[in-house]
């Protein structure tokens, strides 16, 4: 290993790191679960999954190769089609963020640093041992992180993502990148993608998508679930067995459907309905949604790459052969993405507008991580756009450090109160 610290220090880092990480999980999960009354019974499964977040007692990965991914631009269907399991390792742990500071400047995005730290110490969700870590070259931080593979002694693979998605040139380029990625997957896993296996994979993901869309429909109908739960369960999509996840979401949806009928709502009648957007909230960093909902807001829609952007969009194939299926899957991971690394990114504005309309939003809260330039830069554009529609917006710059919650509470309280008064 080429890393800069002595082996002894590395061992100590790993030991303390995992202790801190576990403490963080326990504490933050307790905040998500215990502070709120009558959580849906269907959520219990997801809470339990997060209790065992780092342990490897999950049987779904048994005898299967794991491909770790970092962004929403990694085509999951292709990974399932080579009979491997994708696990998204984007990390929200403050303890890992501190480790990542060893490699990247202190003012880098905490999500990248945290993920880097987790890879370095090999403390990944589900205790996985990935044969490949796919790192899409999206933002600058991710790009530079991709160069650290050797130093981290981990199989980082750079998936080239075009800087724009609107042109046909970018699309063709992306198709070629994905084809190359297929070859890589096949060589790493030793399995070939076949028509059958890819069909099956597309169907499997489509089922999850259909269920997730139903979940959003229910959320739009009535305030039956807290946003923190919604974020948590989409976070579980990162690492959970997809078929089980779909099944559990199906059960939860049925419960929520009953709640809609029984008018069993969460929050108060005058709770401001909030749309969250910006840098993604990833467990255990649930600081912002938990604070908002503790203070009487209600997050009803999130435009995050850890939630709706990841699962929402679907694959449509015209001819069910590999020559059409692979580009179809590729398109799904490029065209509808609203990642700010694409320029222009008007789709993001339109998506937020759609969210505001469909979910009857009262206010938008825009989260930016310190060092996350792209979201920071887009905040002005999005802010203007949203304000023009008469929807108040609150910008919050924060990171994984829990110390700023006092200050956050003051700002959130003021914002939410102003929204309540308007209602």
């Amino acid at each position, binding site marked *: 290993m080429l890393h800069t610290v002595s082996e002894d220090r590395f061992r100590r880092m790993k030991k303390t790191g995992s202790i801190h990480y576990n403490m963080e999980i326990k504490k933050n999960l307790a905040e998500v679960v215990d502070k709120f009354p009558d959580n849906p019974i269907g959520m219990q499964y997801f809470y339990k999954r997060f209790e065992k977040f780092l342990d490897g007692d999950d049987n779904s990965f048994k005898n299967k190769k794991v491909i770790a991914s970092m962004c929403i631009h990694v085509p999951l269907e292709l990974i399932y089609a080579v009979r491997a399991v994708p696990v998204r390792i984007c990390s929200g742990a403050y303890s890992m963020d501190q480790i990542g500071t060893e490699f990247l400047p202190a003012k880098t995005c905490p999500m990248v640093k945290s993920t880097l730290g987790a890879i370095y110490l090999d403390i990944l969700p589900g205790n996985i041992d990935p044969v490949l870590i796919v790192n899409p070259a999206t933002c600058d931080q991710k790009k530079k992180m991709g160069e650290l593979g050797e130093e981290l002694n981990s199989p980082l693979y750079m998936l080239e993502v075009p800087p724009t998605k*609107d042109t*046909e040139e970018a699309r*063709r380029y992306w198709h070629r990148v994905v084809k190359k990625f297929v070859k890589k997957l096949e060589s790493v896993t030793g399995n070939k993608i076949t028509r059958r296996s890819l*069909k*099956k994979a*597309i*169907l499997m993901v*489509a*089922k999850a*998508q*259909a*269920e997730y*869309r*139903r979940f959003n*429909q*229910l959320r739009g*109908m009535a305030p039956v679930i807290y946003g923190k739960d919604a974020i948590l369960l989409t976070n579980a999509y990162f690492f959970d067995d997809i078929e089980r996840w*779909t099944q559990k979401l*199906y059960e939860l*949806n049925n419960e929520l*459907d009953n709640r*809609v*009928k029984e008018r069993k709502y969460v929050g108060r009648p005058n709770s401001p309905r909030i749309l969250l957007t910006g840098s993604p909230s990833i467990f255990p960093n649930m600081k912002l949604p938990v604070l908002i909902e503790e203070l009487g807001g209600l997050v009803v829609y999130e435009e995050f790459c850890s939630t709706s952007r990841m699962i*929402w*969009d*679907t*694959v*449509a*194939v*015209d*001819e*069910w*052969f590999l*020559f*059409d299926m692979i*580009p*179809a899957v590729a*398109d*799904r991971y490029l*065209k*509808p993405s609203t990642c700010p690394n694409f320029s222009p990114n008007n*789709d993001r504005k*339109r*998506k937020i*507008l*759609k969210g505001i*309309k469909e979910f009857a939003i009262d206010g938008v809260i825009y989260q930016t991580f310190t060092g996350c330039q792209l979201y920071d830069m887009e905040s002005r554009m999005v802010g203007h756009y949203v304000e023009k529609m008469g929807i108040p917006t609150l910008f919050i710059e924060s990171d994984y450090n829990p110390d700023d919650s006092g200050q956050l509470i003051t700002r959130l309280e003021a914002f939410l109160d102003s929204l309540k008064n308007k209602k």
Partner: protein
Amino acid sequence: MKANKKIIKYINNTNLSRFRFWFQIFSFIIFVYGSYFLIDLGQNIPTFACPYNPGSPGTCFLISIQHQMHTTWSALFSWRGVGFLTSLLSFVLFFVLFNKAWCGFMCPLGTIQDWITKLRNRLGIRFSNYDEKSFKKLSWIKYVLLVLLVFIPLAIANSIFGLPKVSHDMMSPFCQICPARIILPLFSGDTSQIFINFRSTVTLVMSLLAILVLALFFIGAFVKKRFFCFFCPMSALQYLFSKIGILRLTKVGDKCTRCGNCSRVCDMGILSIAEDVTSVNVVTDNCMMCFKCVEACPEEGCLDVKVLNFKLFSSTEEGFFKRFNPAGDSKELPPSNQKI
């Protein structure tokens, strides 16, 4: 009201492509064998009902134009012009009913191309598509053909700019190279249209060109979906009146995520259907209104097929997941949510 909702849901969940497949067979029989059933639809049909085919129930409007343009200027601007205008009017009346769905649902030549596509699909051979640049360039050809098929007959009857008149052998110039003239009679057992005419240089060139176009038609359709439609002057002529069609394909731009599903499945490879988020009417000159895009759209009510303002068929989540289910079995998907 509940029954009404059920019907709407049933319609939006249907596999429209399957319906189209059977509808195309039905209209193929009408437009190729119609006269045997004593059907007569007149001389201004806005699709390839080819009179060279003994079974045809009428005449394609393109042939009417070519004939009526074969006249002197003075005649054209006298009462004879009124005759042309009436036939144009009856073409438009036919056309406004179904708009460009004449191409997607009724054109026999289009249907044959779709069958060739099905054959290729069976064989598992990949298709190809134009890139954006060629798409734009090639889109012009149909307008050029349309202008030529109007002006060549005029140039036969008149001297334009004092130039000598065009040879009489150029009569109905488009029909001379049209693949429908050769293919459709074959379905009635008439092989007389397969010929090379050595009578004059003009007929020789035109009949050779026809064979070439015929070959291109079959090879092209095997390589690219709806290859010929790209160059079809009927499609160009129809588009001139498309705005007044009562059958409409509309889009609600705000609901679009630009995922590109619609343009992916488009047989004509139209990209603007996905990219354009401001237009309401999304029928372009290359569109044949097959409505595959509506089938492939997973956003609720983003793309609609309307008759005037009445929604006939809309894109829905549920319908999407039913249709684009590779297992082909809708039961495998979790039951849908019932809105209250």
